[in-house]
């Protein structure tokens, strides 16, 4: 419902902008010699930004290479990392050999099939097959329900021992599985014999949301997409525009650097958000990403992040006279960010001192903030520390970008 209101509001704003543009067009037609738009000076300056933005946006959608790097390339990364860390929770690969076929044994076999913790091999159906499979590392353990498992004992209660066969290298998995199965058997036993155990372990849910491996990886991939298009885009395009004399030609018009930058910022924010939206749609649809947070908050936050990172690209591309000059500098800036800000490696794996340093890199608060919105449902107010770091970087980066910009 909230999103519907948001979409309708966006459509209305869009409509109003169109009507204003149409109006100015009609003004023109009544007096063909007057090419001056009937707008106050500040609005005229923004009109320039708007036209540059619209034409360049159209241009992006005509450029197959740009489309590939904007939309498909991040999705490919998403597919690769998604399939690597998809499973989300722990599961064990087991072979289940049921040689008993009592009612209890069959019931237990069926219950394991529906249990996501047990990933039961379909190919290994005999002990010898299972042993071969285990020696190849395809399964972790063999669960054997021996003949007579589940038969009634002298007290009329089903009994028997299930056997876990494991190899030395899978001792941990065997340990974990045996305690899981022991607790399953305890609850089955409870159905037949009421035993009050004096000591018990009770587990309680205290944290509503926790990160799955994929949830963690995914925000890193969002950061990767922001980093790639924001920095490498202008870094490649601007020197090309300079080489062709296009920026020099623009420099002979009253166009200001801020107008040129702003049109780039809006364009990058729009294409960047579309690309991230495609990634989120795929992650939700295919990899069951649970989005806890609010999409409007996420959009606003990511737009700020995109513009921030774009500033680095504008500074590099605006400064460089040619591609060769800027490539090494770009790599010096991009690669540390790729490896230290949580794009590919979780930062919690880093030593404390490195974490406290990388906390202050420009991309870190973008990724952390996006993660907090996506998986914990935080609002922009909760993200004060992240937004503060981003704000300081925004000022520094754009101050440099404006200072070093060259038209040729």
């Amino acid at each position, binding site marked *: 419902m909230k999103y519907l209101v948001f979409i309708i509001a966006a459509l209305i704003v869009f409509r109003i902008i169109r009507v204003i543009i149409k109006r*100015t*067009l009609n003004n*023109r037609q009544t007096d*063909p010699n007057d*090419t*001056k*738009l009937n707008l106050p000076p500040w609005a*005229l*300056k923004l*009109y*320039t930004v*708007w*036209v*540059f933005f619209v*034409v360049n946006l*159209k*241009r992006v959608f*005509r*450029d197959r290479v740009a489309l590939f790097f904007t939309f498909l390339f991040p999705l490919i990364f998403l597919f690769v990392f998604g399939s690597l860390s998809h499973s989300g929770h722990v599961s064990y690969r087991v072979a289940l050999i049921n040689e008993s076929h009592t009612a209890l044994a069959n019931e237990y076999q069926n219950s394991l099939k529906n249990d996501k913790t047990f990933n039961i091999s379909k190919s290994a159906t005999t002990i010898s097959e299972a042993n071969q499979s285990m020696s190849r590392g395809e399964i972790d353990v063999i669960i054997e329900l021996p003949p007579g498992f589940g038969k009634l004992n002298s007290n009329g209660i089903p009994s028997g021992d299930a056997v876990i066969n494991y190899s030395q290298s899978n001792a941990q998995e065997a340990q974990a599985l045996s305690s899981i199965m022991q607790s399953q058997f305890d609850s089955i036993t409870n159905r037949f014999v009421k035993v009050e155990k004096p000591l018990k372990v009770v587990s309680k849910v205290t944290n509503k949301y926790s990160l799955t491996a994929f949830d963690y990886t995914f925000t890193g991939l969002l950061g990767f997409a922001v980093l790639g298009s924001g920095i490498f885009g202008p870094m490649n395009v601007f020197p090309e*525009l300079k080489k*062709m*004399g*296009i920026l*020099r*030609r*623009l*420099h*002979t*018009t*009253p*166009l*200001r650097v801020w107008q040129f930058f702003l049109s780039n910022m809006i364009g990058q924010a729009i294409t960047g958000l579309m690309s991230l939206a495609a990634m989120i749609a795929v992650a939700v649809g295919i990899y069951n990403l649970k989005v806890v947070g609010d999409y409007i908050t996420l959009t606003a936050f990511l737009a700020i992040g995109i513009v921030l990172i774009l500033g680095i690209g504008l500074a590099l591309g605006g400064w460089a006279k040619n591609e060769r000059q800027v490539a090494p500098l770009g790599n010096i800036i991009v690669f540390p960010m790729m490896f230290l800000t949580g794009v590919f490696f979780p930062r919690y794996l880093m030593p404390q001192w490195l974490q406290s340093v990388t906390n202050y890199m420009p991309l870190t608060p973008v990724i952390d903030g996006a993660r907090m919105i996506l998986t914990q449902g935080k609002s922009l107010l909760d993200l004060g520390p992240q937004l503060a770091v981003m704000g300081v970087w925004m000022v520094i980066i754009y101050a440099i970008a404006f200072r070093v910009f060259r*038209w*040729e």
Partner: protein
Amino acid sequence: MPEAILKVKKLSKSYGEVKAVDNISFEVKKGEIFGILGPNGAGKTTTLEMLETLRSIDSGSASINGIDVASSPYEIRGVIGVQPQTPGFQDRTKLTEIIQMFAAAYGEKVNPKQFLEEVNLGDKANSYVEQLSGGQKQRFSIVTALVHNPKVFFLDEPTTGLDPQARRNLWELIEELKKRGISVILTTHYMEEAQMLCDRIAIMDNGKIIALDTPKALIKALLKRGFTKKQEIEKANLEDVFIDLTGKELGRDS
């Protein structure tokens, strides 16, 4: 006598030890075509770039339409049109869109089709720039510099690399600018181009203006000094033959 729209006084520019432009002064009147000639490295391009606000002025002053170039670069850009030596435009952009962008840079909105038709590019309105030939690109480039009705138009070696037809077509365009009352300042290496087009000519060498007058007066002065051409003047030259044979019309892709 029309008033001067562009005034240059004792303009100088050095790159290190080299004086690229050395204390030059001249004026250009409204609707005049003014040529700057000279060998490579004479300071033609540097002079133009200073007037176009692309280079800082070391000393001296320049004003266009009463606006000081050094102190009000943005206002100057609003009254000048610039045709660079090699016009470049971003690819995958329609001609109409580029015109809209340039008009927007001046805070204006124009009818792109009308501008394109003025230079016979009406049927190319929806083409991309990379689909234009050299001559078409030159004409298109001129149109993009006209969207805001400039008072002074700069062209840096506009006809270098063009075939004779495209060159003649460009000359007509430049004459057209003059008729509209736009002052044109151009540099060129082609003497017959300067002779045909320019009302007045400045010849530069080593950063200095060494002669400034109408082409006729310059030739007269030379003859007065007792100069005679070694070869008898032909009644026609090879270019005349070429134009006669291939037709004065623009080539299909020029």
